[in-house]
Every structure is written in C-alpha cells, then in structure tokens.
C-alpha cells in the first residue's frame, strides 16, 4: 500500500546564529541572517525518504510556505531525496502573520489535493516553538496523529509510532491516512551529497497560492512586543554561612 508522503519544511534562522531583537521590538532581525531548514523538518524529510527507500511509500513531496527563499529549503529537501516540491507563496504582512493555524489549513488542503496517505512534519519549529501545526493539521483532516515520534514503522494498513512522552515512551497504533510529527531521536538526517544536489536541480517545484487552495490567511493573533530576556544578574560570593543568612534576610528571601 505505497502511498504519498507530504512533508512540511520550514525555513528558519540557523540555530547556530546569535539572535538579535529588532530595535522597534516588533520581532527579530532576519535581514542578511543565515537561514536553514528547521532541524526537526530535516528529521521529517529523512524519515519520509527512508520510507520511500524501503518501498513503503511511493513518493515524497516537500512543501514550504513563505517567500521566494523557501525554494532553497525545498531544494535541500529534494537533495536529501524528496521527489518533488510545492512552494506555497506567502509574502509580506501575510508571511509575518503566518502561524500554525494558517499552515495547518494549507497542509490539510494539500494533503487532500495530493491524496497523501501520510503527512510528516517536525514536532516544532525552532523559531516559534509552537508545536501546534501537526496536531492542527490532523484535526482539520480528522486523521489520527502520532506526535513526538521517535520511531515509526508500518503495521499492516496503519502505523506503529513510538512517542516520546514525559513518563518515557508510548506506543500507539494509528490507521492511515495519518499525521506524524518528528522528534529528535527519530533518525539522523543525511547530508545532501553532491550527486544528489546535482540531481535535485532537475526536480520540479510547483508554485501555488494559498487562495488557490481555498485557504484564508488572516491571523487572530497580534504580536504586541518582542524583547530580550532580562540580563542575568551576576551572583555574589559570600565568605561564611552567617553572611549568607544575612544576605538572604536582606533580600527578603528569608
């Protein structure tokens, strides 16, 4: 039962870059800053490609929502082994307001359009840290979900997913079509090697607008301010226990 896998990939600020808040506090500086594929999305792509290599899926489609530069992110997914890409064009104010609700609507629409059997996304993006897109996509599609997956295997006409939860590991069996969100230990993503990078140049990336999918992008959220966390106060060294007690009393802690 080899079906199609839809993988969502997000272009985010590279995790090794030092983040700077914009002086007007409306967000972080993104101009001229190095971007790359969200690490959890890389894991998602790797898993999808492995499923296809095992012949459990027949096609991997990489999707990204955003401005022109997202095509680079899709190319990376193609270089890792995805078969084709879809770039959902969103720019300007719409892009600034793009959040999990809007993206999940897009993913749901695409999953139906492409007749996907499986949607895999990273568990969260390292910029928003929302951890909502996968779950919302499943809800909109009324599909089962296996989130925080650390292991995925095909089990008959469904999937067996090992989930990382607070208490340890949970095994769930879900029927397909389904949504899976990738956690850190699911796999180690491959590097895109040169022969594959060359091949990827020839793979197709289709462009589509949210309106074409019948998705409306208005956000119900308004960002009030983005600020740096407060500066860490330096600690004070004391000479004796008596000093410590005095200082704690003075600061009102005792």
């Amino acid at each position: 039962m080899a079906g199609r896998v839809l993988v969502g990939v997000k272009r985010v600020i590279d995790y090794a870059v030092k983040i700077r808040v914009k002086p007007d506090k409306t967000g972080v500086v993104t101009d001229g800053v190095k971007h790359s594929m969200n690490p959890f999305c890389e894991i998602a792509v790797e898993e999808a490609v492995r499923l296809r290599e095992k012949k459990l899926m027949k096609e991997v489609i990489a999707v990204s929502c955003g401005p022109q530069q997202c095509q680079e992110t899709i190319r990376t997914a193609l270089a890792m082994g995805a078969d084709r890409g879809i770039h959902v064009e969103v720019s300007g104010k719409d892009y600034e307001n793009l959040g999990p609700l809007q993206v999940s609507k897009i993913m749901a629409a695409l999953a139906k359009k492409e007749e996907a059997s499986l949607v895999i996304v990273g568990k969260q993006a390292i910029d928003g840290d929302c951890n909502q897109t996968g779950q919302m996509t499943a809800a909109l599609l009324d599909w089962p979900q296996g989130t925080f997956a650390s292991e995925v295997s095909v089990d008959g006409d469904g999937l067996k997913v090992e989930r990382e939860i607070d208490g340890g590991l949970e095994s769930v069996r879900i029927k397909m079509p389904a949504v899976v969100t990738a956690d850190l230990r699911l796999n180690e993503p491959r590097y895109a090697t040169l022969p594959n990078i060359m091949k990827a140049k020839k793979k197709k990336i289709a462009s589509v607008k949210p309106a074409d999918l019948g998705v409306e992008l208005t956000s119900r959220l308004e960002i009030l301010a983005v600020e740096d966390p407060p500066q860490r106060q330096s600690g004070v060294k004391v000479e004796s226990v008596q000093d410590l007690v005095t200082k704690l009393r003075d600061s009102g802690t005792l």
Partner: protein
Amino acid sequence: MTTVFYGSRAWGLFHRASSSSSRVWTHPPFVGLSPGRGLSRPPPCRAAHSGVHRLPFATLSQQDRDFFQTLLPGRALTDPEVLEASNVDWLKSVRGSSELLLRPRTTEEVSQILRYCNARGLAVTPQGGNTGLVGGSVPVFDEIILSTALLNQVLSFDVVSGILTCQAGCVLEALSSFVGEQDFVMPLDLGAKGSCHIGGNVATNAGGLRLLRYGPLRGTVLGLEVVLADGTVLDSQAPLRKDNTGYDLKQLFIGSEGTLGVVTAVSILCPRKPSAVNLAFLGCATFPQVLETFQRCRGMLGEVLSAFEFLDSACMKLVQDHLKLTNPIKESPFYILIETSGSSAAHDEEKLHRFLQEVMTSSLVADGTVATEDSKIKALWALRERITEALTHDGCVYKYDLSLPVQHIYQLVEDMQEHLGTRAKNVVGYGHLGDGNLHLNITSPSHDPALLAAIEPYVYEWTARHHGSISAEHGLGLKKRNYVHFSKPAPALRLMWQIKSLLDPRGILNPYKTLPDRASTD
C-alpha cells in the same frame, strides 16, 4: 648525524651543570596514560630522550614567596592542586614541578616580576593557554610559571582600520567574538581557540586553518609590547600598517616561544568578516587526485579560497570511533575540506558549484557535500578540528608537524606505514595541504621506546632529505629543540644563541626550550 640526545652542558655564566636538590620530574615525552581518563601521575624518571639536567638557577625561598605575595596579593599561588593544571601540558606528556604560579594583571607587574627574577637568578616559564604540543608551555623543573590569564583586557579596536590592540592573555575565541560583533574576524583560527591566548599564539607564531588566506602572524601582527628578561618594557606597539623605521624588533619575538621576552600586548590587523562562507567536504580515491583537486581549486576558486585541509581514512575512522562523529559522505581513502570566504553569497556559491560540477564530472572527486549554514559548517569542521582530540583517546601519540613540498606530503605517511609495519597501532596523516603542512601522527597502546626509536630520527631524516621543516607550526619547545639542525644550519643556530645571550644573559626565560642544547652548536 644520527644521535640527537645531548646532555645539557654549561653555557653562558654558569660553569657547572648541577643536578641540584630540586626534584627532577622529566618524563618520556609520550607517556602511555589510559586514554581519555583525567590525570594520572606517572612515576618520575629520567628518560634518555630528555636528558635534561637542571641548570643552576636559584631555588624559591620564603623571601621570594613573600615578595611575590606582596606584589600580587592573591595572585601568587602555591597550592599544589592549583599548580597541577599548569605543571602539565595539554597532551599530558610532560610534567614540571613548579611551586609558584603568578598571575599579573598589568605590564608593570610583569616587568617587576622579571626584574626581580633576573636579579635573583630565578627561572621563569611564561604560560598562556597551555595548549602547546611540544612541551614548551610548562616548566621542566621548578621554574616559576608566569601566567597571562589575567592580562585579558582589550585595549582598543579601530573599526576603520581593523586594528585590534589587546593584552596578551585574551583568549582567541573571545577575541573572535569581540571583533565579530563589529563584523571583523581574527586573522588566525585553530582548534585550540577556546583556550589559547593571543600572546601565546604570537610567541609561537601559530599557523592554523586560515593561514592560507590571511598569511602568518608575522604579517598580521603590527606591534608588540614585550617585557625583556631584565624587566625592561619594550614598546614596539605602533599599530600601523606600514612603519619602516629601523630594525623590526617585533619579528624577533614572534615565534621565540617565550625565550627572548614575555609578550604582554599585541596589535593585530583583523580582516573583515566574510559575509558568505561555504564549506565543501569531498572524498577522493587517490592522493594525486587530491593534489589535482587542489590545483583546480586554486584556479577556479582563486581569491575566495580560505582553507584547504585534508585527512585520510584512518583519521575519519578515529573521529567516528572515539568521538562518534558521522561521515557525511561515502567512505573514501582521502577527504578534503574546502572553505570559501567572500563578500557575495551568490558569487561564491556560483563559483563553488561550478568547481564542484567540474571535479565531480571529471571523476577527481568520488563524493562530497556542501554546507552554507553555520550549524552544518561547524559540524563539518569538527571532522578535521577534532582529530587531535580523537588521537588522545587512541593511546600514546607520537606527533610530527612537518612542512614538505606539497607533492610529497602523503609519501611520508605511506613510507612510515611500511617502515613501522605492525609495530604501530595507527599511522595517520592530515593537515593544511594548502600550506604544505603535514600532521603525521602515530599511536601505540602504551609508550613504546622501540617504536619511538624506529620513528625518530627516520622521520626527521626523511624530512631533511626533502628539504622540509621538522616543525611547521608547532614550534620546538622542549621536545624538538635538539632536532632543529635537521632544518637549520650550524651558523644560524650559533647566531640564535648569540641573540639569546644578548637579550637574556642569565637565561631565565623559558630555559631548556626552543634552542638546541649548547653542545650541539659549538
């Protein structure tokens, strides 16, 4: 001349080489410690290789300790546990027995320390980050350790010229971050950047990964402030790009390994931070293909090329086994790391991709990967930068840092493998191919004198035959001081000794290091 073991003979003012009452803790340079476990204490022994005898310097008296404790309150340390880290080098291969660690904060304090020690005849070992690989940064006997750890202030940075002036104890990585905020980079980069001090880098004329692009410290250091053995402060700072006024004294101190003076401040020219950095990691089947790739690289990448490093499959295996790093491409006999740095991402990527296309289609390169994101670039650099670390986990390491004509670089590794046969555990080669610098490393489960005898002087003779240098960038320190004749003629060594006598008549600065024991040069 095959024998390289010299007893230290009297020189200068001292007419007796006395093994005085101070303890002698000179160990064979490569002690087989259990790899990777903290610090174990090898028993004291005097191996034939060292053959070092303590020169008749004064010994530390209570009066001396009182003087230093008054001069540097709280910064004249005598606690043996604190001294432990400074008495042993990074490779855990040489151990000194210093009883006093000094941490001056200002040039004036350094000057007073040296003036006192010179008058008293107390030997001093200057110490920066203690990351040197030739035993030059730790005492041999009971020399006083003069640490630059608290000389860590940046004095000025001019964003127009890119000239940075700072004290000698600034950590290289900290300086990189500092100038990085202003969009500049340090002109040198090496694996030890998290610990090494810029003063130490200057004193050892450190090379590193960016030499290919920015040149050696001899070019980028514009000025130095040095304290001489008698306490005189020599200020040849003049942070000017061009200054042809008299003999260029700072060049004497660059690479002098702390034997001619103590560097207390540095003025260095920093290049602009490249806005576009790309990294390609490639695999080649044969060494001639590596060389051919290098030539194509030079031609096609030209001015944006900033690093060209190579490693062999044995190195890859070491980092995989000991550090659990992943090989991003398929297994190959050789791996190349190419870094480009430029001011236009689009321009550089286009050049790089054209180059990669060329080497892939002509089958020079079997496989490869490219990275433009910081995180991936760091991960790929780790494969090269952490080889030294991986080697320390593999057993006893015999390290050789040689300059050779580029086309012969790997020949030495192959010849050594054949020469040693099964006596060695691993014989690996890696290094700065672009600079003709090979890092040849041999490992054995534990210290093996027979193996060492097979390696040396074979490796030095091989190098001399090819007109190479027996120490490309690591310097001479304690371990290689007596092999320098393989690369320098006798008249040169005589002149070096004369300069040393002129600048440090009592010989208190970092004794037993850098210069060959006197006998060999007479």
